[in-house]
């Protein structure tokens, strides 16, 4: 890949980092536009596979960005896209957290934290809803609801639930 393309890729992901309110998954449509349509670095199938692989793998979902970079330009590509998507947002997050902590007694900071709490919880619920709506079917729903009840009401280990889900899938129950 020519140096100009490296710079364009790196620069674009730096920009997307600052736009990714709600996580890197929210800027996926624009990544598709640049990587697949505009630069032709990935095929559409490779692009979709990148998201799927990262979701099947443990760890933060943002790692799909490294998978895209890897498929486009090997390890160097993975390093470039992941660094670019993380650097601006982490710097900003750290600065904002310090500011909020230093001014934690201000009414505006307290109003922000308390006011956002119900919205943040609703967004988590919405994430569960959207993820579960992707695969319709009542058995799938039963598994989802059972996992939700168990994590809410009991102290059963997360890995036990994930493993149970895998077993249920292999046995053809979902």
């Amino acid at each position, binding site marked *: 890949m020519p140096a100009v393309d490296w710079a364009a890729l790196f620069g674009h992901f730096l920009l997307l980092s600052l736009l990714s309110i709600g996580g890197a998954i929210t800027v996926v449509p624009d990544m598709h536009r640049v990587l697949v349509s505009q630069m032709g670095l990935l095929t559409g199938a490779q692009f979709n596979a990148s998201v799927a692989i990262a979701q099947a793998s443990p*760890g933060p979902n943002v790692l799909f960005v490294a*998978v895209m970079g890897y498929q486009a330009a090997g390890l160097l590509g993975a390093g470039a896209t992941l660094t670019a998507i993380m650097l601006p947002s982490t710097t900003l997050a750290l600065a904002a957290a310090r500011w909020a902590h230093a001014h*934690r007694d201000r009414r505006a900071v307290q109003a922000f934290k308390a006011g*956002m709490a119900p919205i943040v919880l*609703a967004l*988590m619920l919405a994430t569960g*809803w959207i993820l579960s709506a992707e695969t319709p079917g009542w058995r799938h729903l039963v598994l989802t609801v059972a*996992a939700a009840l168990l994590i809410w009401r009991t102290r059963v280990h997360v890995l036990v639930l994930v493993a149970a*889900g895998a077993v*249920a899938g292999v046995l053809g129950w979902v």
Partner: protein
Amino acid sequence: MSAESPELARPASPKELFFAFTWLALQGFGGVLAVAQRVLCEDRRWLSREQFLEILAVGQVLPGPNVCNVALMVGDRFFGWRGAFAALAGMMTVPLVIVLILTAVYAHFALHPVVASALKGMGAVAAGLIAGTAFRLASALRFSPMGLPVCAAFGALAFAGVALLRWPLVWVLLGLGALSCAYTWRRLRAAAAARAG
């Protein structure tokens, strides 16, 4: 809100943060947030549920992956930028190696029907984990200055907007979020005035 409950613990070193975040990231299939809440609040007791929600609120509104923002802020709270870096590196390093290995062997495993059906079951569980964690954290709302009915109303609106009507997240955060914060601000001011008067 800044009062720390006495039974909370704290990590001994940035190294402990690194390994704690590595371990919690490795348990997170289809999202780390549910595991992060479990490990940080219930297992390690480094944060109360209220503190976790506050950190999450800041992490949600800012750009960037939410769980990475949470890792940074938790690390920073205990050991400054060294802690922030240790927590984030812990969350990313080993999972990055795993996901790249998976990518390299993707063609061999992705089409395998056993793997595909296992992933389907794990996906159903992941959806349940994130929803169940929201219910678990909701217990923290009983301390909210907004009062529970108003909390529930804003939560229901935000859920309907994002999950059912599929509004862009930015508008929900900026629009409903601003309304909710403004309402809370007025409540806090009224409470302060009542105390003073």
